[in-house]
């Protein structure tokens, strides 16, 4: 399960952060997404 989650998490990160739509997020949301993805990386 952790391996599967790590793979999906990598795709979520790519879509959420590299798709450029994040450029249009409010700063607070951008920061929240970054922090949450880092926390999830550590938790898996």
């Amino acid at each position, binding site marked *: *399960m952790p*391996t*599967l*989650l790590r*793979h*999906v*998490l*990598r*795709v*979520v990160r*790519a*879509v*959420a952060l*590299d*798709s*450029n*739509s994040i*450029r*249009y*997020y409010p700063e607070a*949301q951008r920061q*929240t*997404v970054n922090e*949450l*993805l880092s*926390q*999830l990386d550590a*938790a*898996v």
Partner: protein
Amino acid sequence: MRCLAGYLSFCPSVSLRRRALRPQLKRDPLGSTAHALPTVTETWLRLDQRENAIDDLVMCHRFLTEVRSQSRWKWAIIALHQALYGFCICAVQGTDALSVLKDPANPSSRLISIHEALKRAKDKKYLWPGATPLSTTPAEDNAL
């Protein structure tokens, strides 16, 4: 749950749900001069796709860190799946929220599937200018 052009709306109970957009009309007692006014008693929670995707990440983290049973993996993957779906929609809808509906000409049609959203996230023509198309490895495709 119903998706409307990138918005999600929730009503706490289907059995308590009334037709929100149709005023409840009652006939006044005969001879009365009072007018019946529509009343709105429901409480609705409205989230956009981005807020919803962020909330899914929060829930995924909570399942992983706060739930002790083995079922935490199931709930974590469900939440992460939803987050992926939401971020894909954000990435491919551009400035036209109707473009992510199965039938863009019909605002009440369903949202495209997660598979279609992922497919579009890999195609530059659906992305914001300058965006990097999604690229996945065979292992990631298998996990998805």
